[in-house]
């Protein structure tokens, strides 16, 4: 059934179709509508889940951890400062291998107080042991939310589904909402591999000595590697059933391109428009959309970008004192390519704190990349585009 809904409600429908059993959340703009809708679904009985109201995001994640440890399918949603407040518990969830699904609506970090989109909140949680998937459209949000449960439960790693504040969260788009029976066939009830059992209790998160800690981390890392392959398989199965799939990355009109843009989130849609125009002009430009940020799709990017002359990465985030985070990771991924195949990677900082990234902004990035390509001098690692003089 097709419905015109906002991105936040696309999340809610996804969570409902996944037959989530426990929801614990604390409201924060621009996420609030996600759980508001879910609380109504719970109240009306449409969703048979336990909705736990909590006093902070820290408690929300703690409740999800408890629920997930007992074998339940658990969900929460947050944004920005709320996500930051969860930080310690994100490690507990990741290290505890608990398949929780969380939606983060990308919002700038304060100060200055800002509710608009910016990826610094989710990227700050890069090393907590969570899978991160960035979405471009409301349809992708719904599809990814459901897939996320299957992925998380396949590898026992929590998944963060990320969408842009307002551009997705509060913008209505037509979304195809699958039938419950079809989703049930895709995503059966969770079977926990190990769980907290009050009749045979064990201490979870117990003391782990140097003799075993490192192996535990290695297993987590192996799990992340498996997550990459699992994501591809699950996404393909989804595609088979529902006709839509996304992949860890997506190459768009990259055939024969000498310059390829790398984007994530909603900037991708604007970039597609720009690429179409330039291609019509005969320019050889293409686009790679990065959906999966953790585990980082190194091999996919090498395959997609190896041999391209120039790569321009657009980052709606900044690691202060260094550069855009996608650019940094892309450079690192491509560095080991043989000289002949290794592109130059130009990094552009755009759209922080919700500033519009328009076709002109992207054209500006492309022009800068073209100019830099002609120069033998290395460009600075972070070039800021669309800032006032």
């Amino acid at each position, binding site marked *: 059934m097709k419905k015109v809904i906002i991105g936040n409600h696309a999340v809610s429908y996804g969570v409902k179709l996944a037959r989530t059993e426990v929801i614990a959340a604390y409201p924060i703009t621009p996420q609030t509508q996600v759980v508001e809708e879910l609380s109504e679904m719970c109240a009306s009985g449409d969703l048979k889940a336990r909705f736990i109201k909590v006093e902070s995001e820290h408690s929300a994640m703690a409740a999800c951890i408890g629920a997930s440890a007992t074998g339940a399918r658990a969900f929460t949603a947050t944004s920005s400062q709320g996500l930051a407040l969860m930080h310690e518990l994100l490690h507990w969830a990741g290290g505890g291998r608990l398949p929780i699904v969380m939606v983060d609506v990308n919002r700038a970090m304060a100060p200055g107080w800002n509710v608009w989109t910016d990826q610094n909140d989710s990227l700050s949680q890069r090393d907590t042991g969570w899978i991160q998937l960035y979405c471009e459209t409301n349809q992708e949000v719904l599809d990814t939310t459901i897939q996320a449960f299957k992925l998380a439960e396949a590898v026992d790693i929590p998944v963060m589904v990320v969408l842009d504040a307002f551009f997705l969260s509060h913008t209505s788009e037509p979304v195809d909402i699958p039938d419950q029976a079809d989703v049930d066939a895709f995503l059966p009830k969770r079977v926990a591999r*190990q769980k907290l059992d009050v009749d045979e209790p064990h201490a979870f*998160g117990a003391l782990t000595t140097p003799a075993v800690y490192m192996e535990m981390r290695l297993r987590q890392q*192996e*799990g992340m590697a498996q997550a990459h392959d699992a994501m591809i398989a699950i996404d393909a199965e989804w595609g088979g059933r529902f006709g839509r799939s996304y992949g860890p990355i997506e190459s768009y009109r990259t055939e024969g391109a000498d310059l390829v843009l790398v984007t994530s989130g909603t900037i991708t849609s604007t970039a597609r428009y720009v690429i179409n125009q330039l291609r019509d002009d005969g320019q050889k430009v293409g686009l790679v959309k990065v959906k999966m940020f953790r585990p980082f799709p190194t091999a996919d990017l090498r395959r997609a970008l190896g041999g391209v002359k120039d790569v321009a990465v657009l980052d709606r985030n900044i690691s202060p004192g260094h550069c855009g985070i996608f650019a940094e990771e892309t450079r690192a991924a491509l560095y080991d390519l043989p000289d002949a195949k290794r592109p130059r990677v130009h990094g552009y900082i755009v759209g922080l704190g919700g500033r519009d990234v328009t076709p002109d902004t992207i054209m500006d990035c492309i022009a800068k990349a073209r100019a830099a390509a002609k120069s033998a001098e290395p460009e600075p690692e972070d070039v800021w585009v669309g800032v006032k003089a």
Partner: protein
Amino acid sequence: MPDDQDRKDFAHGVPTISVSQGSTLANRTGSWKCIQPVYQDRIAPCNAACPVGIDIEGVMNLMRLDRVEDARELLLRENPMPSVCGRVCDHACQRACSRALFDEAVNIHAVERMLGDRTAQPRMSAPPRTRTEHVAVVGSGPAGLACAYHLVRLGYSVTVFEADPEPGGWLRYGVPEYRLPRAVLVREIEFIRAEGVAIQCGVRIGGNLPWKDLERFDAVFLASGARAREGFEWQEQGLLDVRPGVDYLHEVRAGGRGHAGRRVIVVGGSDMAVDCARTALRLGSEPTVLFTAAREEMAADPDTVEEALREGVRFEFFTRVVGLQVSEHPEDEQAIDAIRNMFDSGESAAPGARLVGVACVRLQPEQQAADGSRRTLSVPGSSFVLPADTLLTAPGGEGEEGALPPDLHRRGYILKTDEFGHTSREGFFAGGDLAAEPRTVAHALGSGKRAAIGIDRWLRTRAGDAVPAIEPQALRYGGTGAMSVTRWRGDDPVHRTNELNEVVKFEQLNMAYFQHVAGTPDHHRAPGQSGADFGEANLGLAPDEALAEAKRCFNCGVCNDCELCLIYCPDVAIKRHSSGHGFSLSYKYCKGCGLCVEECPRGAMIMTREGL
């Protein structure tokens, strides 16, 4: 750990996480504590307040579970007349209801009424006779009927003797039709009969059946009531127009029209006063009630006063009668001059004289005198005359005693009985208006039940049979409420835990778990209709509304399996009881943090010193 052999996935089998090798059951956190919670039901304040002794909380809880038929059964265990009580009882239960301190009391009497009115599954047979003894009951008012009902349910044979042609006492001949329809009363009396109670009407003990004849019974319950007649100083003056209200009501109840004139003055503040006025209104008169103090001080149920006002009954508060005006020729308008104030002259009325007016003064609100006594002063110059054709007296005070065996005397109005209603004469028990009871239907029913327990206890002891070793106090809800026959029988169908006979206080409940929900008040007939005839004035609640009311109940003091303790216990020391009801605590692991005591919404967890 679950077997993952058959799970085909991308991973790895069981992920490596930090989890203890051994079971944490070895860690007996219970050794840390010095205080410990005890899982213990307490008594709801409504249960302790109901003079009948109904397990109201238990009824509400069964309703919450939509077990309406079971709720009715639980109610009938303690009260054979829920339809009557739900209509005429002034519901002390609701004044005690904890919910009144939160938003509005649960409309308990309407729930009771609805359950009573519900058509029940017909019973296959009366309770079996398990005892050989036969008990006589004198009087078929609520006290006598309740005693008989509980006795047959305890296995006895019972015969009720009633002087009137029909059973019911004041319920039949006092309480008017518009408050208690005859059909409702008859249905409940039929129910009591169907339980096996034999009722013989037209038999006056000490009259057409001598007291001596009761000697063939093993025990006797005296419930002959009291008739409040006295208390009006001018009654003896031979005036037909000045009459006890009780006779008026009795006459109307018996099918007559009461012979009152157009302008009816009722003197008094009791339920009877209000009933006289509302009855007169329905018979086409214009009634006025005179009361010596403020409206709030009337003994009558405030709800019925409100209904009377709505219907058009006039009230004159702070008003005292100081004299009657009569005329020997009232039909002659000119003869009004001939009116004499009989009060002033102190003379008796001539035969044929008729009442024409009532002289009154206004009173000041009561003053506290210097010596601490209270005085009522009239307002100087406030005397006035109310035209009147009939004056009905309805005092709220003590009444004339009912029939007593010749050798059983009482001092003043006090017929002394023990805590089981046993009088000074062996084998004679008493209750209701006859005994020292507040004169209400609920107290009458409660005292009948108390005597039934007392008779059972006395007869069993006499026969050398086993008698439950239970203190009278333990039979009463909260130690001071009315007695419960279920407690006496020890066969409560409702699961309870370590019951503590202590009324739970409002402060012991946790209001964080409740939301404000407005109560539903009783429906009434439209003002135009009510008062016009004897159709029922208060219509109660529809079944679904009553069910919703029941669901507002907090279940004060009694665990209703909400599981909050189980959710909050950080040591998983609380588990569901294997019976499926309630919980058990493992003191090996309870470390005495008290979270369960704090969280329990209804005060069913109590903190104690360890070992106590």
